[in-house]
């Protein structure tokens, strides 16, 4: 299918899980990346229709990656769904305050890990306007 989704996570198991969940919606073309640098390269090259991006990654966090995506004209409009392993239960809610907040279109959604499949599927459908 022509719709491309880029999945970014430093945990290979997490990538597989997201791939499985998303493949249940439709036969998307799925691309993956294991770190921020790879994400930025592939996002610019492949021009995905959606990026599903893990927040807690070593070296470059999801927020830093998001910032970089928004500063590049090639990826400034690409919709992004953020996956975060730290959720409201631990008393910490990520949101706009962590985004640097100055420039560009916000993420479509923030979803907690462990990922609830239906939640992610709804979010993906909304982001791709399906």
């Amino acid at each position, binding site marked *: 299918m022509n719709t491309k989704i880029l999945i970014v996570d430093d945990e290979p198991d997490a990538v597989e899980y997201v791939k499985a969940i998303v493949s249940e919606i439709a036969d998307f073309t799925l691309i993956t990346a294991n770190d921020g640098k790879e994400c930025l390269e592939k996002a610019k090259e492949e021009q995905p229709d959606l990026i599903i991006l893990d927040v807690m990654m070593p070296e470059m966090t999801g927020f830093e990656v998001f910032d970089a995506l928004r500063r590049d004209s090639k990826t400034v409009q690409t919709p992004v769904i953020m996956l975060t392993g*730290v959720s409201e239960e631990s008393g910490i809610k990520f949101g706009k305050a962590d985004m640097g907040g100055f420039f560009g279109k916000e993420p479509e959604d923030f979803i907690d*890990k*462990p990922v609830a499949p239906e939640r992610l599927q709804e979010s993906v459908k909304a982001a791709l306007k399906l």
Partner: protein
Amino acid sequence: MVSEIEHFYRIEKFIESITNMDKLLEVIISEGCAATNAESCSLALYDENTNDLYFNVARGMKGEGEVERKIECIRMKMGLGIVGWVAVNMEMVNVKNAYEDDRFFKDADKQTGFVTRSVLAVPMKHREKLIGVVEAVNKRGQDYFSAHDEKVLSILASQAALIIENARLYEDNLRQARFSALGQGIAGTAHCIKNILNGIDGGAYILDLGLKRQDMENVGKGWEMMKKNVQFMKELVFDMLAYSHSSNIKCESADINQICTDVAELMLEKAKHQNIDIIQDLQPDLEEVNIDPKGIYRCLLNLVTNAVDACDKSDGEVRISTMRITNQELVIKISDNGCGISKENLDAIFKIFFSTKGSKGTGLGLAVTQKIISEHGGFIEAESEIGVGTMFTIRLPMN
């Protein structure tokens, strides 16, 4: 640890209401509008990374019959329009009729339906660095903005520059602090557990899919994922218990060299997969010593695993060596030629919950290792150089 983070979070929330950049900018704009009695005021921030201006806020106090001037989330190239000119030249501009000025960018009006007449634009500077531009448009009741307005907006602009610059620095620090807090402490472990649960959920989901689609490959893949993550969970729980118990060790006569070999053989496959050599340099005829074999095995496994993880490059080498130093002391060294540990981190690596491994790190391995070694009456220390490698040295008393 949990309550610390809660307090930090609550304080941060309070401060956020003060340093929330959007609110801050809105206040500045409102004041600018009121102070100069303008129909509309806008603020553009300079983005160093892309070298353009980002119109964050534009506010109009819409009077009767007036069109609201809306420019939000627009990026403009430096030099474009009156605001762009001001940004490049870092000088104020006061214009009576925008349409008669060459610099004016007419397209913005076309889009919004607003008609710009008088424009007063002032650069926001902080120590000669451009922060952005404040712009007041359409002086009410007069044809143009006065010298008094120029003064007022200039003062406001310099205030704004200072506040914005401080807020930015603060937000940067705050964000960094939050991230370092999150990577550690109970929240860090909870995060690890979540990742493991995610792995188990993921495995189960993929296994189910495999069954549904009659696809044995997915069934196998899902099952392996579940098994692997259940194992991680066991190790994590073991480490947490090991750390929290007062004393864990049960000593007996054991062969250290054999333990080293056992660890090396276990790690051999994983290491070979990544082109890493595990070399054993064991002192021959080393007598048995009184130690807790399970505990020492755990320590060596932890150190060798870390060493293998550190070796990114293809000619990676991990060396395990044992030697008797004196009648009283036995030394075990584990070294690698991997990425190395920075000076700052070297002090922290044995601390509980400290990890540089992102989502893979529990922050427990070295803390537990150090605990077991000291319960044996021994010492462990680390030497390292970035880009060169690391060496851990364990000294154990022979009796």
